């Protein structure tokens, strides 16, 4: 076998193997989407039907009956507001630590990271009681406060690593020109790091959207986001698989797309800059 055929054989094997693995990993999502277009009877049939007349009935039912839009709106409001707040609070901190480091900066950064490692169950009782006593239980405000705080360290770390990548000369030049702090951030830094800042925002959005410990424990109905709506399908009556699939597909679709867009940048945020 000459070198060329050997290469072709190897490439074919890698291609087929990779596609096979990818298909296996993605299968549950594919199956969920497929089931969402079946009738309940079809969804439950064994052997499962692969070819069927697709129906949008489940989506209709989900929209009408389970008050889907209220939950979706809660998810949107909670994750967007908490991500914006984390960015607004975190960006100045990341700026200061990246460009005006002091002897304590490294310690502060690591300490911020350590707050992320506090297991939620360790503070479940006090947070539950504090929320109850301040009237924040089952409110969007309550969840926004918590999500802002749990995402703040990740946001600061991620922005910090992007700011560190900015060439020092550019900032020096603009300081020599006498630019104020605000001008420097607004007109130089933010435009340069726009890509990084948007990925930071997306990661925060994804984490808030999918967060399911606090949303399940601190909301009942009025502030419940999509994670809680889906959880309510765990004790169903009658045929419900197709409707569960439809509700699930709607709940994960937007965030799945965000994830695809930002996949390459996510590594930084998820590893606190330890892997780039």
């Amino acid at each position: 076998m000459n070198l060329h055929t050997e290469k072709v054989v190897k490439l074919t094997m890698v291609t087929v193997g990779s596609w096979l693995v990818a298909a296996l990993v993605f299968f549950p999502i594919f199956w969920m989407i497929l089931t969402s277009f079946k009738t309940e009877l079809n969804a439950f049939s064994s052997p499962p039907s692969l070819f069927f007349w697709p129906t949008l009935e489940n989506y209709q039912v989900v929209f009408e009956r389970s008050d889907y839009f209220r939950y979706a709106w809660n998810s949107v409001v909670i994750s967007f507001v908490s991500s914006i707040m984390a960015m607004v609070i975190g960006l100045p901190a990341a700026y200061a630590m990246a460009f005006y480091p002091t002897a304590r900066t490294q310690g502060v950064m690591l300490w911020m990271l350590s707050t992320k490692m506090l297991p939620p169950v360790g503070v479940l009782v006090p947070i539950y009681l504090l929320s109850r006593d301040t009237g924040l239980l089952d409110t969007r405000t309550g969840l926004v406060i918590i999500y802002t705080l749990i995402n703040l360290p990740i946001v600061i770390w991620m922005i910090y690593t992007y700011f560190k990548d900015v060439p020092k000369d550019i900032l020096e030049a603009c300081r020599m020109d006498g630019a104020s702090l605000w001008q420097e951030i607004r007109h130089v830094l933010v435009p340069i790091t726009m890509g990084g800042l948007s990925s930071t925002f997306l990661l925060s959005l994804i984490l808030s959207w999918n967060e399911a410990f606090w949303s399940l424990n601190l909301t009942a109905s009025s502030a419940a986001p999509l994670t809680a709506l889906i959880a309510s399908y765990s004790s169903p009556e009658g045929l419900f698989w197709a409707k569960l699939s439809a509700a699930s597909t709607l709940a994960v679709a937007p965030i799945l797309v965000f994830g695809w867009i930002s996949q390459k940048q996510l590594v930084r945020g998820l590893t606190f800059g330890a892997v780039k």
Partner: protein
Amino acid sequence: MSQLSRNARAARFLVAPSVLLLLAWMTVPLAMTLYYSTVNFNLTIPGPRNFVGFENYIFFFTDPSFFAGMSNTIVLVGATLLITVVLGTLIAVLIDNPFPGRSLVRILLISPFFIMPTVNALVWKNLLMNPVSGFFAFLSKSVGMTPIDWFTDVPMLSIIIIVSWQWLPFAILILMTAMQSLDQEQLEAARIEGAGLVAVFIHVTLPHLARPLAVVVMIETIFLLSIFAEIFTTTGGGPGTQTTTLAYLIYSQALLQYDVGMASAGGIVAVVLANIVAFFLIRVVGKSLAGE
């Protein structure tokens, strides 16, 4: 005062809000948990809270569920780590070189990570693992086997599969990124010298991946110790205590049995455990911070 030092002074104040907020978030609830863990406090029993010393801790440690919760947590975290790290490494190496459709393959592979835990759990439990009409039951029947009743017969294994599916993409994503910084010339040199695929993997690829692997293991451990929604929506900790982890045990003591004292003692135990892992992670991350 020059513009430069004025900016430097202003910069100090920019860190303050974040530090104060995180300080409050970290210390206030933790101090409360610590206090609750030493008093007699049940939400259903009104009256004064008496100081009971270490009684809650003794009750927590001698509760038969504690041993189950502890060993279940170790099994869940250990098995999930093993599955995600081994498969993640193999897949990251497999898709490292260009092939047709690589970017689509990558997108398909990392997708499970973006699925919310409650959707993940319910799709697996119903659509795939249901013993009558689930997809796996269909597969078993079509090769003439009796379908497995996943959540009755092997509840912990079912949870492990669900959680591993969610975290495998995380390992792939990190290791795939780390693979890109592997020196191609070094790989080429090893191959020219006649090293086989396995030898190259062991002597070149694995050492290169050592640090990213450590990061994956530690970050996953921290998140896996707190796995909650997947258990909450599928087994509720059962049957019996077969899928009750430490996190789920504390939740059920607090919000199902309203025993705040005991749940708080458990909470402190969970914090201490997580801190042990965090200690090592922070050292690794600190090194990379200092190395810049």
